[in-house]
């Protein structure tokens, strides 16, 4: 059996999945000040009376790192940054202890200027003086050649508890994001480590010596050990867990929208052939633009509890939520009240909802029941309009070849999967006002925990070959090999795929479920004068997000429940 646990803002959901589907599902209140206790109480209820040897895997998704960053409760980090020519790296300062040193690598990975050991020494001295124990080292173009970062690491690592190197994060070229991501990894490392070590101990005390997997923002998982090198990848894993949960109930392989309609917000994502569309670069969280791979999502401040107001005859839905619907004792009218008045939601206090809608009806110059219908209709239309914004953003993603511009896949979902409390009511009206076919995820209340439980390990590898210089490298894997002029893009894909499989297994995947997907494969002839002097090859491969194979059966059972 598998345990899936998702710590949300208000509730923590836990499911226990067995061969026959959901064995147990539970909800406990999240105590954001005591997340570890929350996790423990969630686990206690779910495994009570289950023999420990029956449980084979546990996957956790938490708001731990997201909250820590949002509330600036992270530890001090020392950043060492080397940039060379270009934009002033001072613009990318992430924190007070940010030292810019000399040293530069160019776009082909050639050294332009060496690192100055004395400057590094000086930075170390400053950090030690401030009591800093975690350091990030980032160089421009370190994904082309990590030599400078490695050299600095050699020089400084004995002075600190842990050093994070920029090139290990991702093969994607984006120096400012590499700086921000390296910083975040270092900044959340201590709390992440403390928390998950506590979880591991607590599981062991219960007799559960099983691998712990941790949910990432891209809808995949990583194991406990690799999370220690990339703790920031757990940021915003909650919405990803919901999307993965809805995947178990997807109609078929056609494009579909996933909408999680909550009280305050509605979150949307897109599935193409059972795979969520990923953001091309990474998460943006507060001031940080990162290289943390994530599901492309769109969150709007419209939900069941959004405050409704009318100004000059125009209905406004949201953006704020003041409290629950009036039908449930709240202070302001909401779309949920509209549903009560329309007689669709039956368990609320309809009279209170009607009371709340008096002003709205007056403002719209119509009856209360008409006002309710109009408010609900507008709420639905706003959500659909925003879905269009998300689709447009995905389809407008720039491309760089004629082939992609002509043949590039355009997402055009005709189906929506909805999760959330008022989902069934929205589903009906969406079908009335649009051409979408709409389905409600059956166990939406614990879809996030199901998603966590069933998500597979994901990862990505980039390989860069320059046959003129005679090298193929994947700096994030610390891989480098000598190649001759015949090294082709097929060879590059093969090499990258091997590296990817090794990485996936290291991060917790089972070897038999690895499906490698090539997401980038470009080859350029390099010409000097009028002669071809070599090939420049760029390859990127990934294990894409999806559900683990062995539990296809479970997903099948779930979707017919």
């Amino acid at each position: 059996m598998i345990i899936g646990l998702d710590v949300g803002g208000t509730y923590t959901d836990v499911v226990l999945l067995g061969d026959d589907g959901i064995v147990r599902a539970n909800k406990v209140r999240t105590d954001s000040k005591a997340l570890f206790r929350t996790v423990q109480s969630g686990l206690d209820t779910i495994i009570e009376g289950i023999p420990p040897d029956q449980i084979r895997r546990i996957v956790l998704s938490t708001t731990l790192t997201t909250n820590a960053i949002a509330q600036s409760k992270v530890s001090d980090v020392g950043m060492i940054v080397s940039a060379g020519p270009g934009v002033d790296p001072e613009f990318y300062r992430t924190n007070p202890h940010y030292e810019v040193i000399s040293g530069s690598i160019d776009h082909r990975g050639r050294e332009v200027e060496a690192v100055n050991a004395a400057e590094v020494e000086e930075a170390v001295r400053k950090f030690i003086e401030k009591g800093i124990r975690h350091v990030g080292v980032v160089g421009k173009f370190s994904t082309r050649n990590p030599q400078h970062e490695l050299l600095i690491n050699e020089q400084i690592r004995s002075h600190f508890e842990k050093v994070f190197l920029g090139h290990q994060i991702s093969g994607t070229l984006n120096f400012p994001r590499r700086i921000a991501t390296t910083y975040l990894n270092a900044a959340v490392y201590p709390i992440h480590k403390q928390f998950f070590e506590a979880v591991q101990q607590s599981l062991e005390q219960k007799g559960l010596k099983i691998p712990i997997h941790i949910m990432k923002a891209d809808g995949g998982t990583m194991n406990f050990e690799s999370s220690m090198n990339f703790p920031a990848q757990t940021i915003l894993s909650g919405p990803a867990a919901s999307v993965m949960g809805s995947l178990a109930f997807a109609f078929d392989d056609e494009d579909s929208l996933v909408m999680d309609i909550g009280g305050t917000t509605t979150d949307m994502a897109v599935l193409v052939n059972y795979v969520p569309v990923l953001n091309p670069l990474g998460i943006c969280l507060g001031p940080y633009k990162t290289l943390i791979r994530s599901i492309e999502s769109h969150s709007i401040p419209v939900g069941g509890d959004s405050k409704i107001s009318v100004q000059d005859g125009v209905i406004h839905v949201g953006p704020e939520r003041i409290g629950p619907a009036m039908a449930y004792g709240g202070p302001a009218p909401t779309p949920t009240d509209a549903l009560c008045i329309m007689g669709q939601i039956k368990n609320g206090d309809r009279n209170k909802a009607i009371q709340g809608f008096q002003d709205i009806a007056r403002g719209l110059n119509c009856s209360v029941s008409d006002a309710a219908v109009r408010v609900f209709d507008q709420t639905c239309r706003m959500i659909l309009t925003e879905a269009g914004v998300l689709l447009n953003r995905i389809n407008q993603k720039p491309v760089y070849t004629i082939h992609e511009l002509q043949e590039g896949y355009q997402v055009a979902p005709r189906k929506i999967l909805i999760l959330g409390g008022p989902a069934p009511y929205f589903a009906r009206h969406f079908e009335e006002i649009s051409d979408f076919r709409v389905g409600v995820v059956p166990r939406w209340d614990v879809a996030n925990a199901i998603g966590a439980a069933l998500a597979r390990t994901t990862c990505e590898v980039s390989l860069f070959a320059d046959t003129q210089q005679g090298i193929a490298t994947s700096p994030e894997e610390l891989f480098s090999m000598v190649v001759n002029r015949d090294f082709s893009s097929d060879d590059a894909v093969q090499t990258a795929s091997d590296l990817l499989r090794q990485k996936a297994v290291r991060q917790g995947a089972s070897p038999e479920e690895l499906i490698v997907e090539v997401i980038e494969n470009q080859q350029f002839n390099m010409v000097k004068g009028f002669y071809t002097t070599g090939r420049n090859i760029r390859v990127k491969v990934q294990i894409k997000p999806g559900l683990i194979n062995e539990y296809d059966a479970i997903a099948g059972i779930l979707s017919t429940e």
Partner: protein
Amino acid sequence: MLKARHTTGLVFFPAFDWAISPTHPEREERLLYTQDQVFEEGILDIEGIQEYKPELITAQDVQRVHFCVPNVADVTTESHFISAGGAKTIAKAVMDKRVERGFALVRPPGHHAMRVVHGARGFCNINIEAIMIEYLRKAYPVGRVAIVDTDCHHGDGTQDIYWHDPDTLFISLHQDGRTLYPGSGFPNEMGGPTATGTTINYPLPPETSAEGFLYAIRNVVLPILEDFKPDIIINSAGQDNHFSDPITNMNFSAQGYAELTRLLKPDIAVLEGGYSIEGALPYVNLGIILAMAGIDYSRVTEPGYDPDRLRQTPAVTRSIQRTGEQLLSNWRRRESIMALVQNGQPFSERTRSIYYDTDNITEKQFETLRICSECSGVYKIDSSADGGRRILAVHVPRSACRKCRSLGYEWFDTADKRKFTGVYLQDRSDDTYLQRP
């Protein structure tokens, strides 16, 4: 947090799957390292910088500018439609005020493509700036346009297209035509009899450095722009004046290009040539983008940049100053020069031979312009090229008077079908493009 002082739109279309031939300078690899640099610098994440996906132009967008022989499809590829489309996308974003300025980093280039197109010249098939400008004139209230061409090669295609248009100021700064392709672009090339003075050619001696370029911009280009009062300024931003460019002999730098852009303040820049794809383009493009967006570019320096070694000689400085004085004097006297050129004649005729180096075609043109006092005048071109094609092309200008317009249609209707393999009419006054047979 890094923020653009001027919101700036970018279209980046490196056409990674298109080349003239595998080892040609205009090949897949050309913008590869520029892309690496732009991506690694995180330029597209900067607040106020917006990347757009290029749209495709239509055949009519091409016909608005060119007479394509035998037709649009036969002298273009998909890549040209995207490249020109990238410029059009940026121009629309600027005109719709979604951004203040824009830069189309696209290939293939276009500034050697002339009014009549039998094939490719100087790596260009269709003129992407002209296609963009004529689209703007159709879709927006744009009348007066200034084009400043800072490619190292004379922008002879753009010059040809706007030769008879007094509402388009074309200024080309380039390496002296006696030392470089296409061998034209001298100060005495000033525009046709009805548009004398609005074509300005500023040839610069080989080994001109930043000092010379910036002198030309400050002392000649900017005052003339001030005088002309364009609705919009376009920069044909070729980057082959760079000291490391393999096919030219100039000593310009990334810092210099950025400074030039800061001074010129173009509304729209369009990439033209530039073939030092590793040593120059990544840094020059970065400098231009930062300068357009109003972001500090003082740290953008390319490997091997040494301003002392690139300093121009006093002789070069003197030559640039002399040319500048001559151009300013021409500009001030342009009306009297125009009267001299017109010499009271009703028509003006010229015969030319045009060589298409990329496709190895020679074209002969015989052009007849009606010198009109009410508009810039209708003209026709009798063009024959190797391979036996001979066409008659009639151009009716945007602001054509009634008389010129009807003369244009008369030329088109009465052309001898036995003499020509095709007869074309380009009526810009009501956006009509006809061809027979």
